[in-house]
């Protein structure tokens, strides 16, 4: 066999959002009840509703905001979407409509002006190449991590500096949680029922919604490099979690990238699984490190190439059975090494994090799930 390269499927373009009802009369001008979801009588105090939702299997264990009709209508009124619009079809051929997305966003506490970001996030993970079917079902702890580009980072806001991967106050956690509730309530990712995740992950509660610190990056924004999108966009990466890399010694671009690449390449990660023919990897470089690397490597392709060379393992040091599996896939190269990704371009890089530097974060992918980037529509 030869090494299998990563090439996106031909379906790539996101399908147009489909309405379920004709548009000859608008929400104000006709008799249609635009909110089609079943109504349930429930206690409206946070405590009562959270208990009710838990009994229904709707929640994540944290307090939930009751999605009353008035809250859902208020959320919709601040946007420009019909509630019956189908945003994406999720595993099980289940349509995720704007209405369902908004109900879950209300429950999570996400703000109305996050809707277009959420629409793009759902569309991204629904792409067949993201393999949400496998992401949902797997024993792995995988969850989508989202990297946001464009002015929306400051408008929402989405953090891209200190603590951007989690822990910063602001709406990003609620936006991430809204996506997680969609994954649970619509896409069917319920641990022990429709998901076999062995350990799960803290990321399965509120996910990761981070921005890229574009202004500190020596390279073009991630979404522009990946999809030619200048402006608001979101990139979804199915990650097994975050892996911290501490580097207090390096001085040069090569040294930093060697530390990151070698740290990322551990034999038990998804990229070296004998069951996985190919994988991607995502790396977050902090702004201090990025500046040093960028001075020596103005072309991001050089950064990816350098990372890729170091993100490899010596096949001779692998367990015999493991090596045999990788050999059967043709993944042991002429230099006796197995590389984490098929090509340097599959090592994805973005810049984020605080100015204290010292740390990088590696994200390992799941199975053959492929990263997706989508533009975020402008609210009229």
């Amino acid at each position, binding site marked *: 066999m030869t090494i299998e390269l990563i090439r996106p499927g031909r379906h790539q373009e996101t399908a147009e959002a489909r309405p379920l009802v004709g548009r000859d009369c608008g929400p104000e001008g006709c008799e249609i009840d635009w909110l089609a979801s079943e109504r*349930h009588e429930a206690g409206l105090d946070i405590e009562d509703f959270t208990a009710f939702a838990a009994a229904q299997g709707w929640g994540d264990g944290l307090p939930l905001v009751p999605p009353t009709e008035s809250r859902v209508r208020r959320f919709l009124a601040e946007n420009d979407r019909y509630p019956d619009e189908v945003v994406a079809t999720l595993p099980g051929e289940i349509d995720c409509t704007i209405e369902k997305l908004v109900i879950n966003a209300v429950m999570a506490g996400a703000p109305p002006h996050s809707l277009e970001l959420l629409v793009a996030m759902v569309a991204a993970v629904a792409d067949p190449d993201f393999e949400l079917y*496998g992401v949902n079902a797997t024993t792995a702890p995988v969850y989508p991590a989202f990297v946001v580009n464009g002015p929306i980072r400051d408008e929402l806001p989405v953090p891209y500096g200190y603590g951007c991967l989690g822990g910063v106050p602001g709406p990003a956690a609620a936006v991430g949680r809204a996506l997680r509730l969609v994954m649970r309530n619509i896409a069917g990712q319920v641990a022990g029922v429709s998901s076999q995740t062995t350990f799960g992950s803290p990321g399965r509660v509120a996910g990761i919604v981070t921005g890229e610190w574009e202004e500190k990056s020596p390279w073009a924004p991630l979404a522009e490099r990946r999809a030619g999108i200048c402006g608001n966009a979101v990139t979804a990466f199915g990650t097994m979690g975050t892996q911290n890399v501490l580097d207090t010694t390096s001085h040069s671009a090569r040294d930093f990238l060697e530390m990151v690449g070698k740290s990322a390449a551990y034999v038990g990660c998804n990229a070296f699984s004998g069951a996985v023919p190919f994988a991607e990897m995502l790396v977050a470089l902090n702004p201090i490190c990025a500046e040093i690397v960028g001075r020596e490597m103005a072309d991001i392709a050089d950064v990816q190439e350098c990372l890729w060379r170091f993100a490899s393992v010596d096949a001779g040091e692998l367990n015999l059975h493991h090596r045999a599996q990788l050999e059967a896939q043709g993944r042991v190269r002429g230099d006796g090494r197995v590389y984490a990704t098929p090509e340097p371009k599959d090592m994805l890089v973005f810049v984020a994090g605080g100015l204290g530097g010292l740390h990088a974060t590696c994200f390992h992918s799941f199975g053959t799930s492929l990263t997706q980037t989508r533009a975020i529509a402008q609210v009229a």
Partner: protein
Amino acid sequence: MTTGFVLDPTACRATDNASPGPDAGVLAGKRIGFRVDRMWRAWDWISEQWADTFRAAGAEVSFWRSAGRSGTEGEQCEAEYAAFLKTIDVAVVGLANCGSCTGWTIRDAITAANAGLPTVAVATRNFEVFAHEMARRGGRSGLRVHVLPYPLNEQLREDVLAIGEAHFSGMLGTMGARLAAKELAA
């Protein structure tokens, strides 16, 4: 307690086919297709063992191996599988022995069943309930699932083959199959 009405945040599939699909019937003279994967050597061993028995009974056997399901490879995989299904009369689909591989096993089994083929999915015990849940979510709640012991892949080849032999007749029963017409008459 202040009560009121809240909107349901869930969505589910509107349709379900609860039929198990047609029985496989007499297998002699039929073309039996195994769907295997890249993960489970135990399933390779058992499917080869069962294939030998099918061939001895006068059936033709072919194999299709699932690979990556994303990108151009995934699209090729889907097309190859659709073509494979057109070359067989009965589908034996496995192995549901982890989370995602149960998902894909059941999805591929549903594709075969929806194509009108007598179909059986093969799962290990730990993933039996999950396999049925995935079949329900996939709109074929009645999908036939034959269950092998768990753990399976961790066992030695001779132990796995003993399990395969012990489960062969049970698997036939799940498929609604007989090896030969005379066996049916008997």
